[in-house]
C-alpha cells in the first residue's frame, strides 16, 4: 500500500481505531520527569512539545517549544516489559501430604488476572527503530529455540506502530549498530505502521507507511490522504538529519574477536573501580533476557508454585554454585555483560545483542559508557599489535 498522510487528529483517530479493535494502546507519556510507556487513550497524553537531553549518567526532559509528539529519544523503558514482564507465573501447585499437585492450566490462568499481560492484546504506539530491532532480537532469543509460550502469545497478538527518530539523544548510536534511526521493513521485528513526524509550520503531519494487512485495515478505518513527493522527501530529510546527529559511535567491525581476545584486559579492573554492579544497565537494556525462578508460597503454605522474575548478570548470586560464585568480582560481571551483549550473542543467536539505544549509558549512575570502553579495548589491542 502507498504511503499516506495523517495529521494530529489522525493520530487520535488511529488510537481510537486501535481501542475499538480491543487493543490496549501503550504509548509514550510524561511521568515524574521522564518519558515512560503507559496505556493511553488520547493524543493529549503523548509528550507534546517535550524532548530530552541525555548524556552518560544523565537524563533531563527539555521543552522543545514546538508541538512535536515524538520529538524525544529512547526513554528508560523499551517495549521489553510489555511482552516480557518483570514477573511471570510459571505454574501453581498445591501441597499434598506426600508432595504436591500441579494446578490445571485453566485454574492457573484464573490467577493471572492481576498479572502483567492480562490486558493484552497490546498496540504499541511510537516504537523507535532501535526498539524494533530489540523486539526482533527478543523474538529470536525467546521463541527461536525453546519458545516461551506466554511471550509468543503476547507478541503474536500485538499491533506495532513504529516511529522515525527525529531528535536522537546524546547517547544514541543506532547508526553504528545498523538499527536506525528509521524503521525499515525486514530490519528488526515486523511492524504494522510506521510514522514519520513532519513538523512544518502550519503543516504538522505524519507520513504513514503501511507494512501489513492489519495495518492497512486499521488505516482504512480513519481518514488519510495520499502522500505527495514532497511528503516523502520531507520524511527522508527527517531521517537523514537524525542519522547525522548520533551522540555516540561504536565501531562494530571485528568486535566479537576483539572482546574474546580481551578477556584478561586491565580494562575490566578499571571499570570495576567505577561500576556499582547496580544492574540498571541490564534492567533498561531492551534485549537483556536473564531471569531467575523463585518459589512462591501463600500464607498457609498450601498453595505454592514458581514465578519467573527478571535477573541480571550483575547480581552477586547470578553465578552461584555450591562452593562459591563463578563471577565473584565486579570486573568479571561487567566483562560478562559487555562480552555477552557485543560478542557471545553473535555466536548464540547470529546477531549482536546491542541495538544502539544508549539506555545503558544514560541510566548508569556511574556514567560508564559501553562505546567508550569498547574504544579503549580497541586502542589497547592496537597498541599491543604495534609492539615489536
Amino acid at each position, binding site marked *: 500500500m502507498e504511503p499516506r498522510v495523517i495529521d494530529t487528529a489522525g493520530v487520535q483517530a488511529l488510537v481510537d481505531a486501535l481501542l475499538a479493535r480491543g487493543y490496549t494502546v501503550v504509548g509514550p507519556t510524561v511521568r515524574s520527569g521522564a518519558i515512560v510507556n503507559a496505556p493511553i487513550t488520547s493524543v493529549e497524553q503523548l509528550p507534546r512539545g517535550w524532548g530530552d537531553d541525555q548524556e552518560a549518567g544523565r537524563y533531563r526532559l527539555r521543552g522543545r517549544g514546538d508541538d512535536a509528539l515524538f520529538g524525544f529519544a529512547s526513554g528508560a523503558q523499551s517495549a521489553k516489559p510489555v511482552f516480557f514482564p518483570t514477573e511471570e507465573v510459571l505454574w501453581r501447585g498445591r501441597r499434598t501430604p*506426600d508432595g504436591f499437585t500441579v494446578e490445571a492450566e485453566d485454574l492457573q490462568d484464573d490467577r493471572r488476572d492481576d498479572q502483567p499481560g492480562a490486558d493484552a492484546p497490546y498496540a504499541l504506539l511510537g516504537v523507535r527503530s532501535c526498539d524494533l530491532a530489540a523486539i526482533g532480537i527478543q523474538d529470536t532469543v525467546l521463541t527461536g529455540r525453546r519458545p516461551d509460550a506466554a511471550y509468543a502469545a503476547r507478541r503474536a497478538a500485538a499491533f506495532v506502530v513504529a516511529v522515525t527518530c527525529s531528535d536522537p539523544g546524546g547517547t544514541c548510536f543506532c547508526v553504528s549498530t545498523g538499527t536506525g534511526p528509521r524503521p525499515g521493513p525486514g530490519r528488526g521485528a515486523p511492524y504494522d505502521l510506521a510514522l514519520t513526524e513532519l513538523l512544518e509550520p502550519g503543516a504538522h503531519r505524519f507520513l504513514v507507511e503501511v507494512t501489513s494487512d492489519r495495518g492497512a485495515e486499521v488505516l482504512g478505518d480513519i481518514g488519510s490522504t495520499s502522500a505527495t513527493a514532497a511528503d516523502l522527501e520531507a520524511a527522508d530529510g527527517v531521517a537523514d538529519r537524525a542519522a547525522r546527529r548520533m551522540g555516540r559511535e561504536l565501531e562494530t567491525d571485528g568486535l566479537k574477536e576483539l572482546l574474546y581476545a580481551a578477556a584478561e584486559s586491565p580494562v575490566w579492573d578499571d571499570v570495576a573501580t567505577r561500576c556499582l554492579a547496580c544492574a540498571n544497565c541490564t534492567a533498561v537494556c531492551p534485549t537483556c533476557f536473564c531471569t531467575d525462578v523463585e518459589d512462591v508460597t501463600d500464607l498457609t503454605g498450601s498453595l505454592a508454585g514458581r514465578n519467573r522474575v527478571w535477573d541480571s548478570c550483575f547480581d552477586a548470586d547470578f*553465578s552461584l554454585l555450591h562452593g562459591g560464585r563463578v563471577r565473584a568480582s565486579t570486573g568479571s560481571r561487567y566483562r560478562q555483560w559487555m562480552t555477552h551483549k557485543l560478542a557471545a550473542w553473535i555466536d548464540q543467536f547470529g546477531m549482536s545483542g546491542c541495538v544502539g539505544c544508549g539506555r545503558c549509558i544514560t541510566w548508569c549512575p556511574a556514567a560508564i559508557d559501553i562505546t567508550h570502553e569498547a574504544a579503549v579495548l580497541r586502542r589497547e589491542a592496537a597498541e599491543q599489535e604495534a609492539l615489536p
Partner: protein
Amino acid sequence: MVPRRFVVRSSRPDTRDTRTLELSPVDGGPLAFDAGQFTMLLAFGVGEVPISISGDPTAPDPLVHTIRAVGPVSRALAGASPGTVLGVRGPFGTGWSVGDGRGGDVVFVAGGIGLAPLRPAIREVCAARADYAHVAVLYGARTPDDLLYADDLQRWAGEHDVEVQVTVDHGQHAWRGRVGVVTELVARARFDGARTLGLVCGPEVMMRYSALALLDRGVRKDRVRLSMERNMQCGVGLCGHCQLREYFVCVDGPVLPYDALEPLISRAEL
C-alpha cells in the same frame, strides 16, 4: 517449565551426605535419557536444582538420581523418603556419547560426586564391553568414607574387565588404597592415549588438571569431554544463568569437548 510428578520408590545411603533415589512417574511413561543428561529436580516449596541422571539408560524406569546434600534444596531432595512426590523436568543437555569411543580405549576420570553423571556411560560400555578395547575408571574422593558405588566399582572390575583405580585425598584408619590426586592415576593407567576417548566429571579444577593429564598421555583435545557445572534455573536456554561465554551449558552442555572449553576454563571467573 511445568514439572512432571515422580514418586520416590526407594532411597539408599551412599555416604554420610549422599543418597541415591529411585523415582517412578506418577503419570505417563519413563524418562528416556542419554548418559550424561540431567534433570531439574524440584522439592516443592523449597526449590529446583540440576541433578544428573545416574541410572541405566537402557532401563530408564526407575529414574535414578544420586544427590549430595550441600544446601537447602539438595538436602530436601536427598532427604526425600519413599512415597514423597518430587518434580522432574527434563532430561536436558548433551550426553557423553561414549559410543564414539567404540573400537578404542575409554578412560573415565571422576572426582567426588562426579562419578554419578559418569555411571550411566560406564554401564553403557559394560553392556557392550566387547566393542571397546581397554576401559579404565579413575576415581578420586576426599576420604574412603566418601567413595560412591563400592558395589559397582567391584563389579566393573571383576565382571567387565575394567581397570578401576581409586585414590583419596586423605586416607584414614584402615585405608590400604592409594592416597593422592586423581591426575596421578591418569599418568599411570594402562591406556593408549592415541586411541582413547576421555570422559571427565568432577570439580572444575580437577577436570582442568585431568584434561591436561590426558593430553599428556597423547589423547586428542577433541577426544576429551568434560561435564561443566554452572548455576541453572531453567535448563532450556532461557534464563541465561548457565552461560559460559557463547555456550548455554544447559543446552550446549553440560558435556562439552575440551578443545572448545580450553580457552574458556583457563580464564578466571568467565
